């Protein structure tokens, strides 16, 4: 009797009702990640090397399926701490696609086998889960959980290529700097909680804008302002917004390239997504305060990123700095705080994905083929010998530079339009200036591929420019293969999956550049879901 009563009592204080169908993507990702981890423990090598990636892809595909099916249903789950709307779903799709690409690119990566296939892929899936939680979060605590769940696996993944000093260095650097960012963030969140007395976004928003009892709200509250400033810093670390970008080039360069690709696209999307969520929803009332700050940050970021990229000799570092610059463009969309600005930012995030993945896929392919493959000179003469790699890279560079006929152009157009309409014309001019500077290095990459004769490569004896040890990128198999003669034009076939990823995403970059309407309406949908809260 008493036992039953007891059980009933426990039953009564059960947690809030949970809408499992809406939560399905999260559940799928968690189960998939655990399953992958377990399968990775199997003794059979086939199980480890084949089944684990396959399972990861299946997990992500199922998650995508669930996400696609639940479009246009806005639900708040777990007593409003998570909100599944079109914005979250679109960003989840971005994460999942980036993760699939990363899995495919990782199939022959040394990092995957050294860290253990199960662990590697499971961490990747957990990171995706963290991102999904982060962009759905409607609550400061959930937000921080997502933030950490996204970051911690990435620290490990960066260092997964454990026999390479650069990879370890990258992981450690990311860990240290990322932790500082997290600490700053949690401090900021705590202050916001202290100022507003709530951890949910909507009450925070109400508290800031004030009500009939207390008009004006907390706009001049120093506690809140400090909190917002610290939160900005925390997010800025993750989104690699200058001046908090210092880790980016080093980490991008050192991490295994598939992970870099994943970080460059998914992490950036998550960070900008949370910027959108947090600033255009929770603290939108204080826009007058944070908008100038963010606008300044965006300006600095655009300048620093683009100027920094000019002097780089490693393609990965160029892309890292370019990523910093691009983060500045996206941040500009957040600053405007209008419907158009939100749409433009979402669109930009989505378009950023295919071209960046394509570019990193090409680097992966080159790294497998020769030592120091991430160096820009490794691209020399690629146009003549491996057009299947050169074209995606060309498209990626043109798109990042914002040349018509590519998605990047439409994205920039949208952003500039939003900025002009939102009376931030000066920020639009900054974007244009940034694009002009960026031509300097994007075109240099293209010029190297098409206009310079390839240099004969002397296998791994070559020391890459920049004084780094010549251990980058050469997996044992690739080194063996490289010992043979100068690659024949069809060398890309040795990495068909990598070339396929590059071509596919490159083609997407052009396709949506010419027919952007589907993506535009998608972005508009997602944007509308955000303003529903105002």
């Amino acid at each position, binding site marked *: 009797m008493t036992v039953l009563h007891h059980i009933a009592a426990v039953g009564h204080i059960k947690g809030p009702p949970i809408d499992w169908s809406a939560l399905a993507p999260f559940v799928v990702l968690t189960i998939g990640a655990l399953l992958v981890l377990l399968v990775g423990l199997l003794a059979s090598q086939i199980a480890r090397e084949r089944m684990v990636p396959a399972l990861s892809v299946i997990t992500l595909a199922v998650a995508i399926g669930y996400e696609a099916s639940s479009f246009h249903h806005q639900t708040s789950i777990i007593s409003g701490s998570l909100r599944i709307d079109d914005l979250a779903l679109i960003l989840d799709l971005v994460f999942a696609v980036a993760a699939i690409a990363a899995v495919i690119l990782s199939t022959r990566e040394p990092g995957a086998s050294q860290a253990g296939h199960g662990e590697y892929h499971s961490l990747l899936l957990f990171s995706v889960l963290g991102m999904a939680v982060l962009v759905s979060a409607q609550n400061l605590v959930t937000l921080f959980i997502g933030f950490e769940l996204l970051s911690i696996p990435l620290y490990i993944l960066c260092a997964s290529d454990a026999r390479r000093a650069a990879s370890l260095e990258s992981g450690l650097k990311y860990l240290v700097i990322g932790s500082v960012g997290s600490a700053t963030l949690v401090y900021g969140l705590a202050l916001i909680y202290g100022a507003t007395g709530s951890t949910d976004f909507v009450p925070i928003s109400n508290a800031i804008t004030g009500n009939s009892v207390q008009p004006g709200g907390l706009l001049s509250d120093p506690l809140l302002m400090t909190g917002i400033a610290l939160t900005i810093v925390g997010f800025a670390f993750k989104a690699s917004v200058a001046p908090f970008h210092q880790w980016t080039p080093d980490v991008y360069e050192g991490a295994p390239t598939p992970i870099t690709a994943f970080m460059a696209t998914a992490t950036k999307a998550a960070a900008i997504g949370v910027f959108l969520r947090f600033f255009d929803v929770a603290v939108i009332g204080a826009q007058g305060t944070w908008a100038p700050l963010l606008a300044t940050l965006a300006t600095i970021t655009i300048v620093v990123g683009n100027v920094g990229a000019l002097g780089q000799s490693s393609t990965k570092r160029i892309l890292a700095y370019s990523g910093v610059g691009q983060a500045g463009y996206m941040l500009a969309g957040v600053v405007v705080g209008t419907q158009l600005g939100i749409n433009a930012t979402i669109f930009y995030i989505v378009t950023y994905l295919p071209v960046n993945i394509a570019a990193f896929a090409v680097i992966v392919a080159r790294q497998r083929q020769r030592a120091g493959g991430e160096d820009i000179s490794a691209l020399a003469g690629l*146009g*003549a010998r491996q057009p299947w790699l050169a074209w995606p890279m060309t498209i990626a560079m*043109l798109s990042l530079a914002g*040349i*018509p*006929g590519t998605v990047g*152009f*439409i994205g*920039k*157009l*949208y952003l*500039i*339009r939003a900025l*002009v*309409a939102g009376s931030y*014309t000066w920020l*639009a*001019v900054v974007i*244009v200036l940034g*694009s*002009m500077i960026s*031509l*300097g290095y994007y*075109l*240099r990459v*293209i*010029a190297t591929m*098409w*206009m*310079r004769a390839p240099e004969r490569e002397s296998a791994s004896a070559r020391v890459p420019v920049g004084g780094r040890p010549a251990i980058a990128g050469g997996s044992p198999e690739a080194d063996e293969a490289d010992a043979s003669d100068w690659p024949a034009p069809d060398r890309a076939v040795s990495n068909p999956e990598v070339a396929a990823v590059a071509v596919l995403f490159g083609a997407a970059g052009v396709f949506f550049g010419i027919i*952007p*309407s589907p993506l*535009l*309406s998608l972005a*508009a949908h997602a944007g509308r879901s955000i303003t529903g809260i105002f």
Partner: protein
Amino acid sequence: LIIGLAASALPPALMGRATAIASLAPLGIAISFLARFKTGHAGLQFVTDHSWISAFGIHYKIGLDGLNVSLVVLTTVLFTASMAWAATREWERPRLFYLFLSIAQSAVLGAFCAQDLFLFVAFFDLMLIPFYFLIGMWGTGDRVRATMKVVIYTLVGSFFMLVAAIATAVLASNAYGTNLTFVLSTLQHLQLSHTSQDWIFLCFAVAFVVKMPLVPFHGWLADGYRSMPIPAVAVFSGVLSKVAAYGFLKIVLPLFPYASVHYQTLMLVIAVVSIIWATSLAFTTTSARLVVAYSSVAQLAFIVLGIFSLRPQGGQGALLQMLNHGLVTAPLFFIVAALAVRCGGSEDIREMGGLAFRAPVLAALFLIVVFANLAIPGSSNFTGEFMILLGVFKAKMAFSIIAFLGVIGAAVYSLRVYIRTMHNTVGPKAQSREISWRDGLAIVPLVVVIVVLAFYPQFGLKRSEQSLKATMAPAELQEGLSPAAVLAVTGSGRP
């Protein structure tokens, strides 16, 4: 419609590789173009209008009117000539070469036909990309540096134009409370405030002036022209620079009439300075190719002069001159290439000389083109320059007098090149050889067109008359009003 046809020129160029077949398909299409255009007269025709990106009100609207019909013909003729010239030669990676040339052709045609501001901007940028590759992959000399210089110069201009275009549409829709649209004919009715017109005008002007190029944005010219492969430089100078001039006529004058009047003097000064600068450089340079390049700068400056006379005569002359200049400059570049072959690959006129002795046909062709270039009375260029100067004379007399120096200068430097190469003492490595069929294939038809136009300049004039008057009308109106308007503005307190 037209883009579809131009795009269908792509696959044959792809498959045909280095064979002459590659150029025959575009040639056939060009002829069919010509046949179609015969029916064209003033007013917008052959309009294709689809909503492209509805979210931004961007339409895929192309069509022909009196302004662009002759330029479209010019484009196809010159590209066909270039491809014919290229087809008789060996190129590395021919497939890509023709692909890029075809993309360039599509983009240029697109820019000419675009009736949507955004479409124009997109094509304007797009046409640069194939040239980036053409120079970088098949150029000569310090090509990579030249490529960067050309592309960065022009793209910087293009970005200005992009912002200006977006600002035009957004400001117009804000001011009049209409939906966002980029369609030119609609925008024309939504005039912007004077201050916004001012800066938007300057952005467009920078983009166009860089492309032409005029002083002070000419930094890329010498490097770029020196490095380009001949077919590319022929179409670049013959057609691409015209897109910029056309942009002034088609977009700037109707959309920003106030600013056009406001900056008329500035543009005229730039044009005149460019004429003098280019002419004097053409005197001093010894590279035959650069003489042609500088002469084309001077010609383009004349065209700008004509446009910014803001008189229908000037505009007519400018349009005719665009046609003439394209037809003249392309064969000039081909002939320079032919001369260079005869002189051991050098384009330095000091090493040429005496080439006419055993090559009377080449010499005669060269002479005709040179005469056309210096606008000898009887040539179509004479008509063009005359009309331009007439227009400017009516608007601002002083400028036309200075500009006239350019005409004299043109005679001197053109004849100087001709004499130094064709007559004079025989150069050290020069071998007099008759023109080969390969060169002739490209040069002769162009020369024939020049001669025909000389007798019948109305070809271009008749069709464009009405459209041009329509284009110039708002600016003329502004100018006519300006004394009163200035009074009104000063009376009401200028901001």
